[in-house]
């Protein structure tokens, strides 16, 4: 029996990236995937949602074209066409992954991976079992939508991200339970497409984990779009009548609201897939596999990455974790560093953050300075007609160290990469102020906010 250097269970961004790097480093790698390569990110998450968000953006821009002197008549939208286009994007990307895996001579097994012990993994496919031998195992089995316990929910047809991207027709109305990243992004999509959308969020604000000002800005944007946002509300029961989903929603104060919609999307979070680890004694942290700084489980040759270990539950974090594990398998003893992780919300008022948030700094008692620059003063933003937004930088006053940044506005999910570069290279706000940015560009806001931060504001 062939002994692999590493068997990776899960072909998502944590698993396949680890497989590619491992093979590049000369490891003999096997990758086991029970569904489609690409994981949640490619198939039910980042990629389909961003494809849909682009459609939403196009529709919004057409709508706003009138202000710019562009008159478009007879704009038609096809749900079927949108799904089809999304599927073509997904197919292209999956084929790309397949080609890369093949080119690196990674053995891909389609089936359910089951860890038998620290050296053996069983692949179950079409009732056939194959046992693979290995020196190391990476659990990258990801997560699935978390379904909350709500009276009557089991008796109604509802969607999760597993099904919502394959809707054949556009619903007239949709209730989204959960005002987190998934909830607000899909609210933006379906609202732009024409659905009447309601968001129900238990916290006192949407995207509660992000900057409060950013949260307010997005709330306003979504509200202005016509999205009904109920914060501080909890769904207490669901029923279905005449194809309509009837929700009883209770405000924290006790007041009840009744909401009816054609479709219901549950987007309250994700729970880890633990199917691979039933036969081994792993230590868990709640529902998530517990790992150390080197992403090792309590069994030293078994590692875990991505959603299955909790934390950020972001594709790029899973990939970074996968790469870190490969370094550790190669004996390089690398700790996973979560201090500079970009966090993006791709709604059509984008939000992107990196490093520590203001809440983090406050709760840690860090002495920090916050400097805010509004996008309104940026020439490029004006030309784009997207002048809502701002950039906030959190710094220390002594060295100008950049603790974190929060950006709201067009393309900030791209711009935040510049923040990654500043912070990763330990550039301070002084270097940020000195860097020459192209004009006109949105990038100029980095230079502006940095100069403002050191008392040398230009505009």
């Amino acid at each position, binding site marked *: 029996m062939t002994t692999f250097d590493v068997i990776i269970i899960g072909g998502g961004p944590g698993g396949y990236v680890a497989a590619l790097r491992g093979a590049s480093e000369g490891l003999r790698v096997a990758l086991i995937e029970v569904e489609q390569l690409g994981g949640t990110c490619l198939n039910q998450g980042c990629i389909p949602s961003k494809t849909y968000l682009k459609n939403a953006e196009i529709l919004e821009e057409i709508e706003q074209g009138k202000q710019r002197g562009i008159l478009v008549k007879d704009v038609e939208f096809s749900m079927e066409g949108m799904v089809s286009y999304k599927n073509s994007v997904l197919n292209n990307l999956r084929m790309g992954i397949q080609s890369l895996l093949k080119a690196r001579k990674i053995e891909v097994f389609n089936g359910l991976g089951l860890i038998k012990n620290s050296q053996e993994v069983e692949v179950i496919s079409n009732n056939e079992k194959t046992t693979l031998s290995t020196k190391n195992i990476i659990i990258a089995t990801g997560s699935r939508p978390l379904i909350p316990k709500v009276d009557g929910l089991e008796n109604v047809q509802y969607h999760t991200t597993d099904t919502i991207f394959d809707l054949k027709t556009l619903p007239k109305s949709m209730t989204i339970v959960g005002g987190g990243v998934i909830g607000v992004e899909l609210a933006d999509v379906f609202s732009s497409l024409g659905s009447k959308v309601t968001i129900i969020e238990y916290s006192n604000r949407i995207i509660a984990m992000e900057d409060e000002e950013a949260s307010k800005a997005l709330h306003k944007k979504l509200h202005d779009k016509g999205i009904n946002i109920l914060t501080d509300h909890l769904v207490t029961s669901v029923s279905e009548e005449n194809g309509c989903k009837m929700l009883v929603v209770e405000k924290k104060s006790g007041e009840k609201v009744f909401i009816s919609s054609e479709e219901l999307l549950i987007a309250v979070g994700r729970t880890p897939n633990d199917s691979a680890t039933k036969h081994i004694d792993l230590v868990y942290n709640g529902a998530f596999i517990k790992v150390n700084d080197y992403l090792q489980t309590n069994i030293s040759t078994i590692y875990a990455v991505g959603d299955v270990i909790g934390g950020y539950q972001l594709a790029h974090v899973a990939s970074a974790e996968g790469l870190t594990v490969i370094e550790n398998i190669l004996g390089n003893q690398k700790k996973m560093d979560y201090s500079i992780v970009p966090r993006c919300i791709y709604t059509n008022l984008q939000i992107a953050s990196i490093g520590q948030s203001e809440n983090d700094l406050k709760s840690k008692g860090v002495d920090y300075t916050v400097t805010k620059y509004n996008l309104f003063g940026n020439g490029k933003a004006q030309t784009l007609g997207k002048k809502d937004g701002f950039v906030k930088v959190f710094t220390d006053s*002594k060295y100008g160290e950049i603790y974190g940044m929060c950006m709201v506005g067009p393309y900030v999910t791209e711009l935040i990469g510049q923040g990654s570069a500043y912070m990763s290279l330990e550039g301070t706000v*002084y270097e940020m102020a000195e860097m020459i940015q192209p004009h006109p560009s949105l990038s100029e806001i980095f230079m502006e906010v940095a100069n403002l931060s050191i008392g040398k504001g230009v505009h």
Partner: protein
Amino acid sequence: MAREVVMPKLGATMEEGIIVSWLVNDGEFIEEGDPIAEIQTDKIVLEVEAESSGHLLKKLYDAGSTVKVHEVIAYMGEENEAIEQTENFSESKDNKLEEINEQEKVRKTPAANKLAKDNGVDLSLVSGTGPNSRVQKQDVENYLQQDTSKITPLAQKMVQDLKIDDKELIGSGQHGKITKKDVLSAVTKTTSAQERESSQLKKVPLKGMRKVIAERMSESYYTAPHVTLTTEINMTECVILRKQLLPVIEKETGYRLSYNDLIVKAVAHTLSKNKALNISLQNNEIYFYEEVNIGFAVSLDEGLVVPVIENTDQIGLAEIVKRSKEIVANIKNGKLSPEYFENGTFTISNLGMYAVDSFTPIINQPQSAILGVGRIVEKPVVKNGEVVINSMMQLSLSFDHRVIDGAPAAQFMTDLKENLENPFRMLV
């Protein structure tokens, strides 16, 4: 202009090199980087390369010659160029043409040039320490090590603010780049060391008794060549004797007889018959003492003192017990009268009350010998072909080999062993 070819310094310790062979004839054209000669250092044979293209004008040494580093071994230049003229020219340090030329072209050894090329170092940024500021290989190595770009801007600001020498930091970033973490780590280490110093370490100047002990111990250790002999004593008879004499002596003196008293008695008795150890070397004169005055080390909080029982060999065991106990009591009560410490001729250092079996004591100068006493432990020993349990003790005799030879020292130990193993004889 003729250019010098010098004996390169190919290593930090290289002082000179041997020209193994010339690879180019006089007048021959050489391309830049081509080898001119083979040089042997104390370790390897290497080639000297041409720093620029040109003709080899003149070799100054034959193959086999030994030449100091940085010495000119040949000249290169244009075909048929006169050397004398250019030698003068190059030696004219204030000549402006020379300065212009030096600015345009960095003077460097071939080894430095190669190392710089391999590492992508701009030689104009490297300070040369060779003759005429010629860049040596070591200069390039130093430059590579001191690459100041290997620090993040944030770490740089912290280093400046905290006045830390970044050369002492070990970078944990990409390719050894110094990061904030490295600076904080260094600060934490320093702070914790300072905290330890302030909270845990107490600094007391070396003074008083401790200073005297320190000086005398090191003086003794470094001036007198110490030899230490060890032997094991069967103390079973001493144990019996002590048990028998305890009530007798206590009744007579009011003090309890200790093993140390028995050992003092035995040493005095043995020393009186081995006077070769009862001596002292002072100012190149050997003092042979008639009196046997045994000193015994007493530990105090402030240090160590060695009171003396004069004429120890002349007094009985009960008197030894009495004197030693009185002296110790007085000393511990702060009565450090000088007369207690005078005229010692031999010292006993007894650590038998501790978990110490044997040790090498340092001679109490100006005496020439000291006996170290370990603890008494019950051990299985072979006696008349049978294994029995006996009380055993180890003794170590350190003696000054300048004035005492091994044989008399060994004889002393033999006699002492005999006396301690048959202690009743001493009382006769």
